[in-house]
Every structure is written in structure tokens, then in C-alpha cells.
């Protein structure tokens, strides 16, 4: 359950109480004045994560320029769980915007796409989607979403300068990774070997979620078996993620202020070399581009190392997508479909490249720009080698709501890895029961 739209998740705890359908000003009164007589108006709902509103506005503007008889009004919603709720509530009450931006994978499946969304499988752009992406926006009965933004990877974002200075090489196994940490701790002069930022709890999950491709490398059946309640985190290989986090915590490799540091703090620390490793999503480059752009070229990426080098793979998050709800009809539906297609047109891709800084390969028609951050080459290498797997949320609907709490506990030494994994299995059980899955 981690993706850009999700990033708000715990960040905004304070406001999460509230969560807001914050409107992007669309002065509704002025828009339908006499001049544009029969214009079709559609609304586009996106999340409030920093590049999204700007991207949405730019897409709307460019689309309007190409289609003078259509007006696109951008609306903004909170991200994270609050946003999930809002989307579900609006869909179930038939009040959804004409086009909306949302997660792919199991979060999409939770929206009952067959009954709540418009099937887009007859659209031209569908043919260009990657085979990894199609299943995460499809059910047996249809394909519902067009990608907006690029895929990204979960693993270790590291600082190349620190690596060069200390003569380190990219680790292939967990032991090599720990050896690197040891060297950074002793010779790094105050550089934190591993950055953790529990001021925003979602960031604590990477040791577990980013390790998932490694779990699949050991046990290719794991995801299906997990959904069927035949696998658990309390057993290896999945338990290793928790254990690795505990190991790093116990060795004291974290930055001193890890309990209260925030995601932007972590982004700054890795970019400026205050820390050497940040287990994170590669999309952290977007934040770094915004806040400390000079540091982007210093960053590299490697997959969280497995116990054995042969099992080390990168975990990939498929991009979010734009969807059309079933409540959109008539002229608005035509305009909505045209807008969805526009997102993946040449003009749409230019806007994506400019504003949504790609942090991994695209899933549709778009091509990466020439000046993409070097970290993307590292990710591309895993893709080219075929050493990647989709994150668990794209393969199984099962995910407990409290993972981020449990991983904070492991990282803070409140709970042991084994306890935490068992606790999380129990948490997952309540979710699976709520979904009414078989075998739980």
C-alpha cells in the first residue's frame, strides 16, 4: 500500500483527523458564462501530493488548448487512507469526479471496478501498456485505468559520494550490506549508515515491503499462497524483512533523530550525504528534486539485499492511474475518455516528464527524458536483467492496516522481529476477514 498517492498517509496524521477535499479553485460561477456556450465541462480529481496538483493543472490546460469545447476543472483530495475513504465514499454515493487519479493494484480492486468504473479496454492506448501494468488496472471483465506517472522501485537509495570516499561497493547480500554499514559507522565521521524517519510512520515499512521481490525469488508461489492463508510473515522467507530491520536497529546504525525525523528530512539527509543508505521508494527523487536538486546526481539505487546474492531482486511499484467512474455519462463520458487518452499522448508525456519526475520505467507510451536522474539507470539495470517483481500489493489484496506501526516498533526496539511478524499476521487476518476472503 505504498505509492505516491499514499505518501500522505501518515505524514498528515495531524490533519488526517480531518482530511480534506480541498478544492482547487475552479471558479464555478464564471466558467459557464455565455462565451463558451455549449462547452462540455468535466472534473478531474487528483491527490494533494506536491507534484500532482501542478501536473493535473498542466494536463487540464494543455488538453483544453487542444479541445476548445471542453473545460477540465481540477479538484484535489487528500492522499493516504483519508483519500481512499473519500474516493470510496464518493464512488459509492455516485458523486465521483468525471476522471480521477488513484492507486492501481489491490486498492483499485477494493473499488469494485466492474460495477463502479467504465471499462476502457477498447481504447487505443491500452495496446501500449506493459504486461506488468495491465493486470494491476484490470479485472477479468475489463481494463479500467491509464497510467499517470512512471513506475518506481523500493529498495535502498544510497549516496554515491559516501560510497566513493569510503571505497565501498554495492552489496549483493545482506552480510555485505551490514559490512558496509559497519565501515560507515566506524570510518564515516558521523555519517549515519542507515536513515530512518519514523516521524512519518509509513517510511518504516521499506525493510519489509521492499524485501518482497526477494521473498518471491525464494518462493515464487508466495503471493497466491499468502492470499489463500497458506503463508505468513512469521515464517521465512518473509520473516527476514522484519529480522533485517531489527538487526540494523540493534547495531545502532540509524540516524540519531530517527524517532521524530520526517520524510523530507530523510530525503535531505541522503541527498546531502548525512546518511549513506535510505531504504525508500525511488520516488524520493521527486522530493529531492524539489528541495535539494543539487543532490540528485549523487544518488544511486540498489535492491534490498537478500541473504543469498542470487535472490536479490528489486521490488517494483506500478504507477497510479486515471479512471472514469460509471457515473460519468454522455458528452462528459466522451470528453473524459479523450482526456484519459491525452494523458498518455505525446503532449501528455511531455508534461509528465517535466512535472512528475520519473523514478523508474514508464508503463505506457511515454519515454524517459534524456536528463533523467542517474538513479534510474540503476533501476533500469534490474529491469533489463529481469531481476524485478511487483510489490505484494499488486499481487495480493491482503494487507493489514497496521504494518507501519509494527515496523516502527521493530525499528524502535519496542517489539522483536518475531513478535512483530506474528502480530502483523494477526492484523492481516482481520483485514482478510473484512474482505471476506476464502480460507481465513
Amino acid at each position, binding site marked *: 500500500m505504498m505509492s505516491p498517492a499514499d505518501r500522505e498517509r501518515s505524514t498528515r*496524521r*495531524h490533519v488526517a483527523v480531518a482530511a480534506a477535499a480541498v478544492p482547487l479553485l475552479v471558479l464555478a460561477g464564471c466558467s459557464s458564462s455565455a462565451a463558451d456556450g455549449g462547452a462540455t465541462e468535466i472534473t478531474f480529481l487528483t491527490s494533494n501530493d506536491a507534484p500532482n496538483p501542478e501536473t493535473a493543472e498542466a494536463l487540464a490546460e494543455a488538453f483544453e488548448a487542444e479541445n476548445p469545447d471542453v473545460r477540465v476543472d481540477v479538484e484535489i483530495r487528500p492522499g493516504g487512507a483519508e483519500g481512499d475513504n473519500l474516493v470510496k465514499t464518493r464512488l459509492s454515493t455516485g458523486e465521483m469526479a468525471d476522471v480521477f487519479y488513484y492507486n492501481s493494484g489491490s486498492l483499485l480492486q477494493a473499488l469494485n471496478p466492474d*460495477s463502479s468504473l467504465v471499462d476502457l479496454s477498447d481504447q487505443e492506448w491500452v495496446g501500449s501498456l506493459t504486461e506488468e501494468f495491465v493486470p494491476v488496472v484490470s479485472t477479468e471483465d475489463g481494463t479500467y485505468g491509464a497510467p499517470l506517472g512512471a513506475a518506481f522501485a523500493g529498495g535502498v537509495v544510497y549516496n554515491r559520494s559516501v560510497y566513493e570516499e569510503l571505497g565501498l561497493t554495492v552489496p549483493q547480500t545482506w552480510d555485505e550490506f551490514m559490512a558496509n554499514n559497519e565501515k560507515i559507522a566506524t570510518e564515516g565521521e558521523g555519517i549515519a549508515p542507515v536513515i530512518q524517519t*519514523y516521524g512519518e510512520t509509513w517510511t518504516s515499512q521499506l525493510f519489509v515491503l521492499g524485501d518482497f521481490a526477494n521473498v518471491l525469488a525464494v518462493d515464487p508461489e508466495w503471493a497466491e499462497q499468502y492470499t489463500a492463508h497458506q503463508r505468513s510473515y512469521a515464517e521465512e522467507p518473509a520473516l527476514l524483512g522484519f529480522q533485517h530491520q531489527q538487526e540494523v536497529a540493534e547495531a545502532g546504525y540509524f540516524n540519531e533523530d530517527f*524517532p*521524530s525525523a520526517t520524510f523530507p528530512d530523510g530525503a535531505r539527509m541522503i541527498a546531502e550525504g548525512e546518511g549513506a543508505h535510505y531504504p525508500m521508494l525511488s520516488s524520493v527523487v521527486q522530493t529531492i528534486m524539489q528541495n535539494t536538486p543539487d543532490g540528485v546526481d549523487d544518488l544511486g539505487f540498489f535492491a534490498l539485499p537478500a541473504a543469498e546474492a542470487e535472490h536479490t531482486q528489486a521490488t517494483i511499484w506500478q504507477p497510479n492511474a486515471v479512471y472514469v467512474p460509471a457515473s460519468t455519462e454522455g458528452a462528459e463520458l466522451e470528453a473524459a475518455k479523450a482526456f484519459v487518452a491525452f494523458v498518455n499522448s505525446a503532449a501528455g508525456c511531455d508534461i509528465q516528464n517535466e512535472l512528475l519526475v520519473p523514478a523508474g520505467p514508464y508503463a505506457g507510451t511515454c519515454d524517459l527524458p534524456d536528463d533523467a536522474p542517474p538513479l534510474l539507470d540503476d533501476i533500469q539495470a534490474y529491469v533489463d536483467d529481469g531481476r524485478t517483481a511487483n510489490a505484494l500489493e499488486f499481487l495480493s489484496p491482503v494487507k493489514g*492496516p*497496521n504494518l507501519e*506501526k509494527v515496523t516502527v516498533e521493530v525499528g524502535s526496539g519496542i517489539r522483536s522481529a518475531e513478535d512483530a511478524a506474528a502480530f502483523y499476521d494477526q492484523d492481516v487476518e482481520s483485514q482478510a476477514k473484512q474482505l471476506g476472503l476464502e480460507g481465513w
Partner: protein
Amino acid sequence: MLAPVTTEVRPGRRRRTAGSTSATQRSIYPSWFYLPAAALYLVFFAVPTFASFYFSLTRWTLFDTEFIGLENYVQFFSEPQLLQGFVNTLVYGFVTSGAKVVLGLALAVLLTSQLVGRGYLRSVVFFPVLVSTIGVGITFKALLDPFDGVVNTMLAAFGIDGPGWFTDPDQALLTIAAVDVWKGLGIATLIYIAGIVAIPQEYYEAARVDGASRWQQFRSITLPLVQPATATVIILSLIGGLRSFDLIWATTGGGPGFTSDVIGSVIYKQYQAGFYGLSTAGNVILFLVVTAVMVPISILLNRKEVDR
């Protein structure tokens, strides 16, 4: 059921009016005065609440519901963090309520005495009530940051190693409770001030004539006569404290881990996760818990008042 807030009813008056027949009562005080409020209450509160009792017996995904009997309740009680949530809820409710009673009364006594800067103090104590919970949460997270926060920086200047406040598992809940008291103290003080000024000055004058000390005056006049205000403060703050989760959510989100989770935040997390049936069941349980705590307490408070 609840005690009067501002002043007590003088027994003499009640006796006098007991003579009016219920017929004249009915014409002077017509029942339809209840109607507008009752209509709102029924439509916007009672109906949804009863609907939620039904929904608590279903697996409910917003798109469809499936009747599953008491399964949600079974599941709610098997939530691993629930026990701690229960304990935390009671601790939080009683600590904040107790602190508001003690500090509110103390401040009210102080602010009704002849004191320099009384007007200023009365205003300033009430200021935090005016800030939204979000605003308070954001501000105190910054002030109490264990590394760069103002409070710990100042403590460090005195050579004290400040605690982790919101990030220390042992302290997070109490820190939030303290902020809650900071924010809610103004209301408690206001109610107490109203109660104290309602006490006839003659009592104090008589006591002074008898040579009673300040403390004796407080013990034997203020404390007993301000009891209705105490009842109101306890009831309002305890209900608020037991149901509360918004400040917790705005500061720690129930963390670190689950150490500051209360029933309210567990329910909210389930709601966020889309477990609507489960979280509605939790709501019903929270309602029962609050009732179980409040009914004996309000009976006790009312009886005390009658005794007097």
C-alpha cells in the same frame, strides 16, 4: 440526570410551584417545544445511529453489505492492541478529567480572588480553547520535538536531558494528555468561575467573622457549594476524554507503535482501512464503555448533590 452548571436550584422555590396543576403546566409549557430539536435529533442523529447498529452486524464495504451476525464484535475483541487501547482510554479519560477538575478549580479560585492582572489571566487561560485541534497538534509537535524542539532546547540550557515526549513509548500518552489539559482547561475554569461567583458572598463574610482561614473557607464553603460545577466539569471532560482521539491522531497517530492508542483511535484506524462494519462495531462498544463509566459516576454525582 446531570447537575446544573451555574447555580443550584433553591429548594424553597420548587416547593412553591409544586402547587400548579399539570393542566396549567401543559398550557404554559407546551410539549411541542421539544419538537424542532427532536426532529433534528431524530433525523440526523438517532436514525444514523440505529442504522449503524445494524451495519455493525455486517461486512460492509460501502458498495455492498453482507450480514455476518456478531462476527465483527468477536473480531474487535480479538484485536491484539485492544487491551492496551482499553487501558489507555481509561488512563487518558481519568487523567485529563482529574487534571481539569483540580487545575480548573485552582485557577478559578485564583481568578475570582482580588488578583493583579486578573482580566488578562482569565483571557489567556481561555486562549487555547480557541485554537483548532489540528493547529494545537502541529504546534506542539514542533515545540516538543525531542531534538530541535523549543522545550528540550530550553531544558538542555539548564543541563536537563529532555524526554522524547511524543516519541517515547512510556511518555507519549501522558504527553498528549497534558496537551489536552492545556487545550481544555479554559472551559473547566470558566464553568468553575461561574460556579464560584454564584456562591453568595454572605457565606464568606460570615465565615470571616468567625475567624475562618482562607483554607477553611475554601474547604467548607467553596468546595461543597461548587459541587454542581464539579459535576459538570467531570461529566463533560470524562465523556470527552473517553471518546477522544482527535488530538491523539493529530500528534502521535496512536504511536510510537500502538503505545498511545485509545479505543477511539483503534476505531478510526479501522474506519480508515475501510473496515466499516468492524469500526461501527467498535463504535457500539465504545458507546457501551463510556456509558458503563458515566452512568454510575453521574448517579453518584447527583446523589451527592441531593445529600447536601
